[in-house]
């Protein structure tokens, strides 16, 4: 009888541990339906940029992100994306992928200011395909580059007014024709 109780206790412990492990499973931000999310810009990103080099890119954003509204602050617009915004940038193997070719990597921005790993209010992740594991970038590699989105830069409309655009180069409605890089 005593052995049976011990076995039951052990089984309960194992089950609890398994449940605990299951509960701690990391969330997946680039959900399977991300393909249906709208692109953040009409610009064809077929020009090289630091960080992604000569690789074609398609950025998409979930509906939460598209609900962002700029506010006026000291005469300038300021963009603060709502929490829960997810931007997934598909990165392809080459600058001119074939029709139907799948991306080789996803880079992901998630607006989660309360997350201790967030930088600038965003969690910066990468997802290798087809493995599917999303790994956060712990350094400042991503944000260093994306901080330039809040200043004048050579992409899209170039942010001529140096609005705070929450580290996002292409904010909704500010897309530029697909002309590649721009000098200023």
């Amino acid at each position, binding site marked *: 009888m005593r052995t049976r109780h011990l076995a039951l206790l052990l089984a309960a412990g194992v089950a609890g541990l398994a449940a605990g492990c299951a509960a701690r499973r990391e969330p997946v931000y680039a959900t399977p339906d991300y393909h249906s999310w709208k692109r953040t810009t009409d610009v064809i990103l077929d020009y090289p940029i*630091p960080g992604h080099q000569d690789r074609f890119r398609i950025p998409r954003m979930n509906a939460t992100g598209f609900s962002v509204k700029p506010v006026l602050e000291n005469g300038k617009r300021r963009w603060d994306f709502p929490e829960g915004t997810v931007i997934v940038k598909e990165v392809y193997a080459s600058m001119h992928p074939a029709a139907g070719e799948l991306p080789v990597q996803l880079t992901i921005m998630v607006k989660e200011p309360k997350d201790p790993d967030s930088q600038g209010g965003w969690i910066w992740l990468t997802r290798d395909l087809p493995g599917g594991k999303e790994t956060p970038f712990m350094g400042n590699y991503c944000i260093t*580059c994306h901080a330039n989105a809040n200043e*004048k830069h050579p992409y899209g409309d170039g942010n001529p007014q140096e609005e705070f655009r929450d580290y996002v180069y292409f904010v909704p409605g500010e897309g530029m024709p697909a002309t590649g890089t721009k000098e200023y």
Partner: protein
Amino acid sequence: MLLPMPPQRSRVRSLTLKVDVLLIAALAVGIGAIMAAFAVSLVSTRDQLTRQSLKRQGDDHFVAVETLMISGNAPQAVQYFTKVNLTSAATTIRLYRRDGTPAFSDDTTIQHVNERLRTSKFDLPDRPARGVPQPPVHFEKAVTLPPEELFFRDDEGVALAGGTAYFRAYRPLINLPKCTVCHGSDHTVRGVIDIRTDVTPAVRAQALTIGGAGAAFIVMVAILALIIGSFLRRVVLRPVQLIGRVCGEVTTGNFRGRVDVQSNDEIGVLATTVNTMVEGLRERFELTKYVSASTLGALKESQEPRRVTRTLVFTDVRGFTSYTERRTPEQVVSVLNRMLEKQSAILQGHGGDIDKFVGDAVVAVFSGPDGARRACAAALQVTRLCAEAPADCDGLQIGVGLATGSVIHGMIGSVRRADFTVIGDSVNIASRLCGIARGNQAIVTDATRAQAGAGFVFKGPYSVKLKGKSGAQRVWLLTGRAEGEPT
């Protein structure tokens, strides 16, 4: 009285040695763990602080380079680095291009920018192109994607032996989108800021602290081991050794030893208990001299009375009462004890059990299939005792009566005082036969003669009327050994 031999032990290991080893090991591990944690924490904290400081410096220098270079002020950037290096003798800052060559060392970058902008926006200082130097150590990790900030020790020699200890940090310079206008978009890392800080004094001070702490650790372990070991030896080990010694002496028949422990703790209680136990054992050992072997056997086994066949031997000194009137008590006791001692030796030597001494009489019981034979042999020897050594008996003689038959063997008496003895008709007959035996005579019953076998010579039979018996008894006079039998 034979005492049991103590159990043989193949090898006795010293408890003191075990305690000392355990003590030193526990102290070394316990305090050593604390010391190790202290040392690790010290080094880790220093590393952490230095890393944070270097990271902060790297970020500051990155902002400075970014700010100066965006406006195309490379000469100011050069001046900036020169001044920064001058302000701190302990810290050296260098800027490398992504190929590992020192920045601003030649006109390569200016030429590249002018070509890209298709202008001559930046003047060429006309510096000769230098050969490509060897990239700094670990440089590749800082320029491959994703670029990493590196933090590592880069010592020159051993700091404690006159060398220099450096902490070194690489802060990659990212080719920001705004930089791409001049420098192009074909690369992610523009270069690396290299910050090297001389931490030799800190490392030496730390080594001194850890070394001092290590020495203190050894001294502390030694002192604590000495104090605690001494305490344990005095309070636990010595009393245990004393108790062991006294117990060892008891196993060899020495009951005089006592444990001399005065403490009032559990050890003291144990010592008192052992002393009480040894005293009890001593008393019981002494008592065994006054108790028959059968009584001792009954104490070990069962005390239930049982009916058994035994040969009873009664001996008595003839004319002892009148003898006592002519001698002093000391003389009487001396002669009597000598005679009783010799009789006891004879009776016990033939396997008899001395049941009791009653004045000058001895009662012995012989058991076993050859009990009657051994009883007769003993009786013969007793009857010859005074004839062969008259001086020992001071002229006295001993009469002996023997009877064999069924008796009750058991504890007889009250709960406060009892004897483990025999009762029955054979006891009475043996006593009566002893009473009628003359000096140096042994009278046996028909049953005793029959069971004694052919090894003896009997004279008789005689018919005697015994007190308390209705009919006449057929008895025999035991006169000697049969021819060929040992005398």
